[in-house]
């Protein structure tokens, strides 16, 4: 079947869908590889239901226009939003929305990398410290820009982050942005609850720390994020989620491990011990927190090594992580006391 796609940089291009190759199929969309006008792309064809429910084309257009408006504040759009975050073309296949993304060579997700020790080792070896610092900071900047634009991306997981090559350079790229909700908008409501990420301490575990927070029930979706109408525990969940997961994603991008790594099991029970210890001693913000060494979960040399590495990521980010993961948890704050734009210094 012939299909017309509207490219942002070269107008309408006609393509033959019979030549597309399906690479994945899920409930929300089918994913294809396609060669269009001599170039390889990834094409996402949403189910009819998802098209109606989530309005993906309109949603990404709205996000992009908001981000473009504040591009100067972000200092240009972060690279990690461009590869698979925003489409280069849109179209419609029968009644279904179609988004076209740039093709990422040597595509792997950060989850694929973290699941295999060999892959992880290779990732760390092929990206030197300064590259990993740049990528991690770019990921945080991308999330901060979304925050500034009132875009709430709750599905910030290692499985939704690609690592691969575009135009000859390797980078990390956030994807599935078209599921992000827009704060204050009835039209672009929350349409997904994030999948649990095997590598993350889940945001829901904050409720075990005494923070009144609850994920909406899937049956309540789509849920417009209108603060005055949202139950308080949902609003807390919406405000905690991007920053709680954002720092964890940055941590994986930077070191290939989570911020809680080293603990025998990364659960809130173990973490609360660390938090209480830090609170009692009133330490300076540092990462990993000193208590991780003092309580014996990290050996002295491991602690020193990790501390040196984390310090290289930047004092601003270490302070932000400490504030969100330690101080705010100790103080049982309903919402985080800092935002990603303030941590990154773009607000």
């Amino acid at each position, binding site marked *: 079947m012939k299909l017309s796609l509207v490219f942002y940089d070269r107008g309408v291009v006609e393509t033959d869908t019979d030549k597309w190759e399906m690479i994945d199929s*899920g*409930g*929300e969309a089918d994913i294809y590889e396609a060669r269009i006008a001599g170039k390889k792309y990834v094409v996402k064809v949403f*189910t009819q*239901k998802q098209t109606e429910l989530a309005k993906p084309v309109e949603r990404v257009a709205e996000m992009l226009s908001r981000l473009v408006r504040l591009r100067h504040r972000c200092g240009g759009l972060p690279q990690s939003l461009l590869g698979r975050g925003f489409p280069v073309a849109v179209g419609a296949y029968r009644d279904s929305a179609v988004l076209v993304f740039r093709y990422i060579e040597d595509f792997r*997700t950060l*989850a694929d990398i*973290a*699941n*295999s*020790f060999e892959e*992880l*080792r290779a990732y*760390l*070896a092929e990206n*030197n*410290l300064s590259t990993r610092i740049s990528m991690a900071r770019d990921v945080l900047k991308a999330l901060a820009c979304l925050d500034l634009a009132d875009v709430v991306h709750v599905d910030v*997981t*290692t*499985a939704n982050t690609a690592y691969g090559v575009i135009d000859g350079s390797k980078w990390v790229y956030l994807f599935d942005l078209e599921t992000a909700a827009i704060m204050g908008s009835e039209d672009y409501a929350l349409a997904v*609850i994030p*999948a*649990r*990420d*095997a*590598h*993350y*301490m*889940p945001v*829901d*575990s904050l409720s075990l720390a005494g923070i009144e927070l609850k994920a909406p*029930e*899937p*049956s309540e979706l789509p849920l417009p994020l209108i603060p005055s109408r949202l139950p308080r525990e949902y609003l807390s969940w919406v405000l905690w989620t991007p920053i709680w997961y954002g720092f964890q994603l940055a941590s994986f991008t930077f*070191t*290939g*491990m*989570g911020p*809680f*790594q*080293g*603990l*025998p*099991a*990364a*659960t*809130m*029970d173990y973490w609360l011990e660390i938090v209480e210890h830090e609170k009692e001693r009133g330490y300076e913000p540092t990462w990993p927190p000193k208590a991780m060494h003092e309580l014996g979960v*990290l*050996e002295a*040399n*491991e602690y020193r*090594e*990790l501390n040196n*590495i984390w310090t290289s990521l930047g004092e601003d980010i270490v302070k932000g992580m400490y504030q969100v993961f330690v101080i705010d948890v100790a103080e049982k704050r309903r919402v985080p006391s800092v935002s990603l734009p303030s941590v990154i210094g773009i607000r």
Partner: protein
Amino acid sequence: MAIPSSMLRVLKRRPLSYTVLVLFVLDRSLSMSEPKTYDHRGKWEHLVELVEKLTQRLSRSSMAPVFRVGFVWFSDDVYVVEKDGKKYFPVVEGNPALSAFRESLNKNRPYGMTAMADALQAAGRVIEEYIEDKELPSEKYVTVFLFTDGKETKRTPEDVLEEADRINNELREKLQALNPRNRIGLATIALGLDADRETLRAIASFLRDAQRKVLEERGLLNIVDPPYHEKMFIDAPQNDRITKEWEEAVRRFVERLSETAVY
């Protein structure tokens, strides 16, 4: 670039905040050798392929590190797959679950009758071991998948109900005593019209709303517990013959239920 050795040590430690036990309870009675399938191979061979595929898919899932997979074979007797003192295995780093399953195949070819109650009892013991496993974090989820084409032949259908009830209630309480978020589910799949479909439906757990939504979105709800779509039960294929489509739908059903155990 050299990676500091102490960093490697920390990286090698894989802390998890939760785990999911996927326990396959698999019928190897003689009727499982019947070629009631689209390619005329025995049902047992199809079941083996299905479990292999599922174990491979779990290893590629974004949640892969959290899965622990166990296997219980049953016919006249019950065989719990065990290796190095373990009865459930990870699917990452070489997929030890898949190796343990493959190594069990020679000893578990079709023969005999259907000791389903005994199999569920053995499954219960594996779950208890998982609950008591101190090496894993306290947040634990369990989904049991019972595949059978027969009726209880050693004990009674009431015993099957009783053993399933123990999993659905007693063990659930024990699991939730560790952590109130913990959950347990029992899914049943009838591999033929001769299966005790009534009992299989009766013992299956109810789908939670979130799971039903996911199954609906994936276009799978129509094959799950028709016409009610309430329970984790897949009825036998029409015409008593396993088709490619049915097999694929079952694979996706198991995959989705495994991944949504935490929902």
